[in-house]
């Protein structure tokens, strides 16, 4: 057998390894998108796939997001499992019609006769100094569309596991790939890729007793850092990494909040109409009697994604998280 991408160590390589292993395991898996072939994708996630599997299975398409998603629908109708790449978060928007009207609904409108085993890879989020249209957090749009699964890994191991699970799923899965973490490494052993994670489970990344930080994707490392920093101020923070936004793991999240009695939701997309509002409402509905304080949100500002030289003011950082944690010392009437 061919040896692959030497030693996957970064998150980008783990995504690539997952694609490669999925293609090797199942000939119906096809990768398509802009520049995914010869170039290996602008983030090199698909590097080597065209060479190993040929350009019929890893295909450079014309530059057309609706066309990519729309043809992928037809391919799935004929029994293939397409994995499409949207080059950047904000460039997926021309394909929304296909995504919302067909990808998400095909199973339901055909009463189960026509599933859509289609994976949509979307590099998303900021923090890489991109110019405008290269840093959007588009998760709320996908979450608001019934029929789609939405996952977003924060670790190298999860990048592999969730991608394999997404491709194996008989439903369409949006894999939000945190661009900021593409080059992050962790202790993942590339020789023995982890088992496929079931989609829909959150994980406690750090146990704690005084409050829960609920977060996902690019904000997970930031929350881990904040939790370390909070120790000095006497806070023992628990960090829950959602991993899957749809379906949502109410159980893990509620169990954590019931234990700690306090919660802050952290994400970099805007707060108004953003995922945090939904999460805070769910937590409140389920844990009201356990809560010592309102569920707070630390989110990006409700602004178009700012220019690179200003993005650090927009992205929730450790200090903003610690400020919110301090506000959890809630007293009635305050």
């Amino acid at each position, binding site marked *: 057998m061919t040896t692959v991408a030497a030693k996957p160590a970064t998150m980008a390589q783990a995504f690539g390894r997952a694609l490669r292993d999925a293609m090797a395991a199942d000939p119906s898996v096809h990768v398509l998108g802009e520049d995914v072939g010869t170039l290996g994708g602008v983030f090199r996630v698909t590097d080597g796939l065209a060479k190993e599997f040929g350009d019929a299975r890893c295909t450079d398409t014309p530059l057309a997001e609706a066309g990519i*998603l729309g043809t992928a629908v037809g391919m799935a109708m004929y029994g293939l499992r397409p994995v499409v790449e949207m080059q950047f978060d904000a460039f997926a928007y021309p394909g929304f019609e296909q995504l919302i009207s067909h990808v998400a609904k095909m199973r339901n409108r055909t009463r189960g006769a026509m599933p859509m085993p289609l994976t949509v890879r979307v590099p998303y989020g900021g923090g890489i100094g991109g110019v405008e249209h290269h840093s959007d957090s588009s998760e709320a749009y996908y979450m608001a569309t019934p029929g789609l699964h939405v996952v977003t890994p924060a670790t190298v191991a999860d990048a592999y596991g969730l991608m394999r699970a997404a491709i194996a799923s008989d439903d369409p899965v949006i894999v939000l790939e945190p661009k900021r973490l593409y080059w992050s490494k962790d202790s993942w052993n590339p020789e023995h890729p982890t088992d496929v994670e079931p989609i829909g489970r959150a994980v406690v990344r750090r146990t704690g007793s005084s409050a829960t930080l609920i977060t996902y994707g690019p904000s997970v490392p930031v929350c881990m850092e904040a939790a370390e920093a909070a120790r000095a101020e006497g806070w023992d923070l628990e960090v829950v990494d959602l991993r899957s936004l749809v379906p949502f793991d109410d159980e893990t999240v509620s169990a954590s909040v019931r234990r700690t009695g306090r919660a802050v939701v952290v994400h970099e997309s805007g707060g108004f109409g953003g995922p945090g509002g939904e999460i805070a409402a769910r937590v409140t509905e389920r844990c009201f009697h356990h809560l010592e304080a309102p569920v707070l949100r630390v989110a990006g500002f409700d602004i178009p994604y700012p220019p690179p030289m200003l993005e650090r003011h927009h992205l929730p950082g450790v200090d903003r998280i610690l400020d919110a944690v301090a506000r959890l010392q809630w007293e009635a009437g305050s």
Partner: protein
Amino acid sequence: MTVMEQRDAYRPTPPPAWQPRTDPAPLLPDAEPFRVLGTDAAAKADARLLHQLYAEVVRGRRYNAQATALTKQGRLAVYPSSTGQEACEVAAALVLEERDWLFPSYRDTLAAVARGLDPVQALTLLRGDWHTGYDPREHRVAPLCTPLATQLPHAVGLAHAARLKGDDVVALAMVGDGGTSEGDFHEALNFAAVWQAPVVFLVQNNGFAISVPLDKQTAAPSLAHKAVGYGMPGRLVDGNDAAAVHEVLAEAVRHARGGGGPTLVEAITYRMEAHTNADDATRYRVDAEVDAWRDHDPILLLERELTDRGLLDEEGIRAVRDDAEKMAADLRERMNQDPVLDPMDLFRDVYAEQTTQLREQAAQLRAELDAEADGTDR
């Protein structure tokens, strides 16, 4: 060196002369739409095929009338009639082999029925009891598509996938004149041509997109001309001439099946009824225009051809009409039965496996339904 001399020294060599990648001449549609009925070409047409087309077109007309009547009785939520366009609908269905796929738009119920779908199941979307009433894989008919032109890239993807698997399957995708202005039309044609996918695009140019006439839709010499820019042949055909539509589509299907790639066919036809039963066509067109098209009715053209050639007599006409009448009576009777719906189906088939959230919501609805049944609801 002066600045000007420097500039001249660095002037790059001009690029090589422009060469078209494909000679556009054979791709261009003929100036006149292709016709068979009433021309010398008709003599070569297969009599059995003409008869079949005739019977199907008559059935189609009756089907359209019956479905429209059902909207008046509140049995159908809406019906976009294809009266006047039956030749296109029927030819599109008959030209395909069993293994091929049809990708209809919302107006193409008739094509789906002509392909063999149960007429009641084909009306599920328009009746409002579910979105798609049939298993698309069983008949190889994609769900009737409401958003304009979005089914076209699906046809391309499916045809492409079939070819990758080594199956000689062709996809035929139908779209209206208005739909050709959508971005998905462009993207689908471009993908199909680049991939040489075995697809046939059939544009039914029926004069209007709801109220907007063709000259406000496009400045192209014809919609078939649009093909040339993508590098595929464009063909113009008289859309009321069933034999001509069949022949042009059959040729395009052969071409696609043989590896020749996609074709764009524009069928020039006319929508005789309003856009749907809910539309008022008098606001945007005059009766004289509609009347002019009556002399070019698809049934009339076939009937004239067949009777002139002694292939059809009064009795034959009556037999075909009786058959259509039977189909209509059956449709009427079955549509007059109330569909049995289970509200719990709302939560089925959203995902392969229900999410916890959907399970909770299903339980909520179950409780509401039980309370309703017990008379204990508030």
